[in-house]
């Protein structure tokens, strides 16, 4: 998310799936879209049928590659070199859209004197503090800005507020040595087609084919879309990979235009929703940062001073925060008590999922609710995760089946091998039956920010209930339990406004919850019709400002609507913000407000009516003319010019150079994965991301640098047939039979070397451990020639576990805990491993007896 957020203003996909059909070129990179987003992939197929070009860049030839015009095999973890070489070629050969770049990005801004690039400092930017393994970002500031340079990179997810600076010096000719455009040009100069060949394993001919497919389809008449997913996010340089894609698409003038942009494909059905109304530790709903003890957040006034920007959309942060507090605490939130701000907890550090694993293992976390998650299989370094679970005092698992996280204490591999004994595990496990989608009301926010409501179709079986029922009941019981307590933590519970009405079956009325999310005028009780009506004086309450407008009247839930019309599919569900389908769509018109071309017209300025009109809801003040220029002292978006499409950011322009919002640099830089078989060809002195978060623990060892014991690249992935850690697929006979058993894919050269036949048993090891699984030997994987060496890549689906019908060794027993410094996401897509033929005894452990297919039917 910070990959897009820091540069464009919002972390969400800039476009929507249906619009992929209008693309002239779709580049799927960092994603196996056909397998993991098959329904959305229909629009990629449609684009191809309309004559568009589809390119897939991936270590493996997958079902996505099968439908693509061109597949480029790449070494896992080297994507940034390829993107950098595309950026460099687009600049050096003059293939960029100068008008777009000049007006819509900060290309002309001058970077301050103090800034030093990775070229000068052997792979580091200026401001690196060795001891802390962190950057002081003050030297990255743009020249002439107000000097509000933040000396520290801010909390990972609140990047939007910080990115973009105003009142900077500019050079519209783009020739000044310190202007962003020239800095960018020099930074990427070493990313050449030859380096792509040496680092990624893609030869120059293939590179040229890719480049010409993209550039020929990035013109006023034509547009290119990039689709990425977790195969970009799950790297120690994931944020910067995505940032490099954003830079490329900005240079080509593709963002905000139909058939263009960046389609961020979210892994699950409502992963987008779970960051909008977050399950993340460092965010409040609507991307307001969580109050933090190490920030100036002591009071509401301090907090608002920190998160509110003078210009750009976050000028409105006080209205959103106060309305959120009113939604949380109701009448108890008053101006006198900072609207109850003091009841919010403040975070003291990194509580990401990876850190939680260590905290469970070390006894810091003693109880865990596991809802829609299966850490015994899906947790990184899953062996450590299971040990963590086995050290809890209590564990509540709510699922439809007895998943591994609920039975690790009796059926897990550690119990089988004798290293864990059930009678010695103190964890009390509560397995509670959960209702599935069709058995409950609710909504999904899908990958394109689209919220769709669903009604219960059948009642859940037995005692199964929805998560909403469980949380609602738990909250009420906890409030009862702490009713007479006068401790601060009890005060937090007592202060909550918790008055959701329930339906006859005891389930809470979720449309009433949606109304709270939408927001209401407290005096009249009427819903607000959009976030523009929210106020910072306590007269409105709103659970998530970006969703405002979803319920403009108490009897109208727009997420229910299914009357799609036009190219934007307006009328089908509700897309945040304000039902806009393509974000930053002001950029679909030239700076003067006319469409770039008739074919790619989307939103344009209607001179007679004095408004922006078109096929979509304008993501821009609807009456602000293209020639508008702000007066002195203007605030919010009135401080933006009429040709500044990126309205969340302080200057309304996309950030090719990000002055302070990212922890690992203002420009994307290639570092090798935390575990790599090769040196860093581009920056020999800096192998890995210098500020990636290492999680040091004896249970989480890393591979020593280029250890010859682990010569192959290992990448994990998912299959169409299964869902993540398998809780909803491996236990279902119809899905289990389609991929009944765990396996690893390897090329035939490696198979020959190791002496394995297709279908045979192999052992794969990393410093964390070893697993035994079946080998699928295939030509879909090919050895790559990297810097004169032959590198083999091993693909490993991570769905499988010891429970359910479709079983197999747990891939995540091999992965490690290490994080991207911005998103705090682990590195699951590139590491190193060794492969050998498995012995018979190991085979017997892995084979888990016979299975009854239709058990439980």
């Amino acid at each position, binding site marked *: 998310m910070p990959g897009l957020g820091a540069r464009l203003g919002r972390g969400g996909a800039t476009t929507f799936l249906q619009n992929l059909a209008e693309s002239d070129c779709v580049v799927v990179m960092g994603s196996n879209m056909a397998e993991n987003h098959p329904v959305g992939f229909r629009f990629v197929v449609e684009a191809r049928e309309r004559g568009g070009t589809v390119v897939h860049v991936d270590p493996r030839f997958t079902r996505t590659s099968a439908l693509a015009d061109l597949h480029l095999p790449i070494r896992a973890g080297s994507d940034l070199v390829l993107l950098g070489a595309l950026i460099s070629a687009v600049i050096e050969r003059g293939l960029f859209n100068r008008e777009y770049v000049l007006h819509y990005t900060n290309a002309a801004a001058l970077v301050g004197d103090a800034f030093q690039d990775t070229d000068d400092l052997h792979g580091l930017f200026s401001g690196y503090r060795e001891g802390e393994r962190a950057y002081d970002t003050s030297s990255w500031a743009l020249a002439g800005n107000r000097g509000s340079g933040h000396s520290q990179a801010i909390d990972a997810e609140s990047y939007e507020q910080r990115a973009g600076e105003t009142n900077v010096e500019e050079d519209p000719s783009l020739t000044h040595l310190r202007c962003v455009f020239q800095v960018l040009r020099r930074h990427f100069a070493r990313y050449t087609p030859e380096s792509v060949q040496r680092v990624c394993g893609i030869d120059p001919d293939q590179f040229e084919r890719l480049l010409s497919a993209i550039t020929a389809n990035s013109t006023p008449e034509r547009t290119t879309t990039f689709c990425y997913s977790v195969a970009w996010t799950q790297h120690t340089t994931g944020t910067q990979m995505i940032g490099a894609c954003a830079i490329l698409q900005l240079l080509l003038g593709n963002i905000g235009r139909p058939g263009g942009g960046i389609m961020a494909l979210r892994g699950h059905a409502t992963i987008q929703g779970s960051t909008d109304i977050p399950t993340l530790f460092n965010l409040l709903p609507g991307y307001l940062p969580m109050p933090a003890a190490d920030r100036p957040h002591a009071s509401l006034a301090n907090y608002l001073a920190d998160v509110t920007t003078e210009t750009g959309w976050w000028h409105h942060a006080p209205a959103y925060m106060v309305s959120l507090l009113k939604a949380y605490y109701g009448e108890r939130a008053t101006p006198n008590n900072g609207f109850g701000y003091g009841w919010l907890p403040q975070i003291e550090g990194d509580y990401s999922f990876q850190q939680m694993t260590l905290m469970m293992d070390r006894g810091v976390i003693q109880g865990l609710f596991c809802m829609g998650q299966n850490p015994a299989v899906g947790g990184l370094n899953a062996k450590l995760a299971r040990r963590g679970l086995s050290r809890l005092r209590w564990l509540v698992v709510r699922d439809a089946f007895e998943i591994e996280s609920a039975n690790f204490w009796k059926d897990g591999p550690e119990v089988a091998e004798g290293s864990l004994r059930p009678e010695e595990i103190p964890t009390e496990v509560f397995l509670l039956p959960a209702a599935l989608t069709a058995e409950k009301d609710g909504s999904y926010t899908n990958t394109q920010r689209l919220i769709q409501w669903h009604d219960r179709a059948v009642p859940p079986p037995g005692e199964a209930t929805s998560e909403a029922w469980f949380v609602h009941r738990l909250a009420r019981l906890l409030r009862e339990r702490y009713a007479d307590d006068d401790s601060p933590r009890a005060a937090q519970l007592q202060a909550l406004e918790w008055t959701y009405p329930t339906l006859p079956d005891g389930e809470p009325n979720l449309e009433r919850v949606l109304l709270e999310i939408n927001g209401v005028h407290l005096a009249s009780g009427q819903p607000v019709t959009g976030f523009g009506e929210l106020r910072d004086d306590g007269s409105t309450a709103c659970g998530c400002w970006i969703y405002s407008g979803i319920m403009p009247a108490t009897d109208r839930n727009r997420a229910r609507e299914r009357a799609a019309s036009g190219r934007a599919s307006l009328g089908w569900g509700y897309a945040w913000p304000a039902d806009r389908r393509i974000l930053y769509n002001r950029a679909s018109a030239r700076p003067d407000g006319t469409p770039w071309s008739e074919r790619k017209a989307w939103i344009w300025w209607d001179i007679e009516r004095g408004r922006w009109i078109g096929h979509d809801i304008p993501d821009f003040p609807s009456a602000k003319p293209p020639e508008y220029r702000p007066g002195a002292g203007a605030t919010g978006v009135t401080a933006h010019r009429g040709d500044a499409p990126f309205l969340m950011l302080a200057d309304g322009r996309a950030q090719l150079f990000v002055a302070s919002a990212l922890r690992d640099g203002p420009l994307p830089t290639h570092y090798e994965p935390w575990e790599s078989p090769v040196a860093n060809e581009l920056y020999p002195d800096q192998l890995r991301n210098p500020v990636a978060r290492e999680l040091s623990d004896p249970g989480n060892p890393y591979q020593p640098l280029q250890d010859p014991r682990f010569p192959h690249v290992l990448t994990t992935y998912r299959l169409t047939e299964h869902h993540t850690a398998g809780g909803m697929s491996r236990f279902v006979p119809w899905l289990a039979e389609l991929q*009944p058993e765990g*396996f690893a894919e390897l090329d035939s050269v490696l198979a020959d070397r190791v002496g394995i036949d297709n279908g045979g048993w192999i052992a794969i090891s990393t410093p964390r451990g070893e697993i035994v699984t079946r080998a699928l030997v295939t030509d879909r994987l090919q050895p790559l020639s990297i810097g004169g060496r032959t590198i083999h890549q091993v693909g490993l689906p991570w769905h499988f576990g010891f429970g359910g019908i479709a079983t197999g060794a747990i891939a995540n027993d091999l992965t490690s805990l290490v994080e991207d410094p911005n998103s705090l996401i682990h590195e699951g897509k590139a590491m190193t491993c060794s492969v050998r033929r498995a012995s018979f005894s190991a085979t017997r452990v892995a084979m888990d007896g016979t299975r009854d*297919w239709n058990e439980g039917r």
Partner: protein
Amino acid sequence: MTRSFGHEHPGAMGFLTDATLCIGCKACEVACKQWNELPADGDAALSARSYDNTGDLGATTWRHVAFIERVATDEAPFAWLMLSDVCKHCVHAGCMEACPTGAIVRTEFDSIFIQPDICNGCGYCVPACPFGVPQLDQDDGRVHKCTLCYDRLRGGLQPACATACPTDSILFGPVTELRSIGRSRVESLKERGVQKASLYGDTSLGGTNGIGGLNAMFVLNDEPELFNLPAAPSLPQRTTGPAFLATLLSGACFALLGAAAFRATKRGED
């Protein structure tokens, strides 16, 4: 052979399954099993044949997605071909002709339907199908295959597989319409350079001894055999007449020879 069901004949309905649009997601397999309440099968182990763990059509598997990893040659690069196979609902259906009990009927949708309450499990239809579609269910002793979702069609719905297909690789509709879609699709594929594109199941399939076309057709981008489809399918029973005559003739010859030999022996004794 069309039997009257007492209401209007809606015309021949069928499938057009396009290998060039299939992403191998197997949603058709699952939707079919779910709607028709078919049990999971297979031996619960990895087949190690690409991503095909289904193997074949069978009594409890009425859609089967084939995965073919076509090796790279000088003419064509590596490709991963996928195709969802199904009962062909033949114009001249071998299974129906072979069925001695009348359990197999042609419906008002011109589809081939096995009536489970009449089928006695004799299995004559099994070798009569040139595609190996109908199979005997060892559990209930009867033969089963795709019904073209007869119950769904009666209810005004499309077959489950076509409904579930995310890329429109499986189209359902009137056969004449599908045939013309298929033909123009093949034309456009050839224009795009897919020289081996063909409409499998067009009326000419199998020549004069063939089955007169399929109501479930396929757009292929390589030789039919690569997809495990016979290039020139024919009905086994078309050969039973000549085979019977040949047997009769050779029997007669042997009888004559025997008689001649016997006579010669007798003459020798004289």
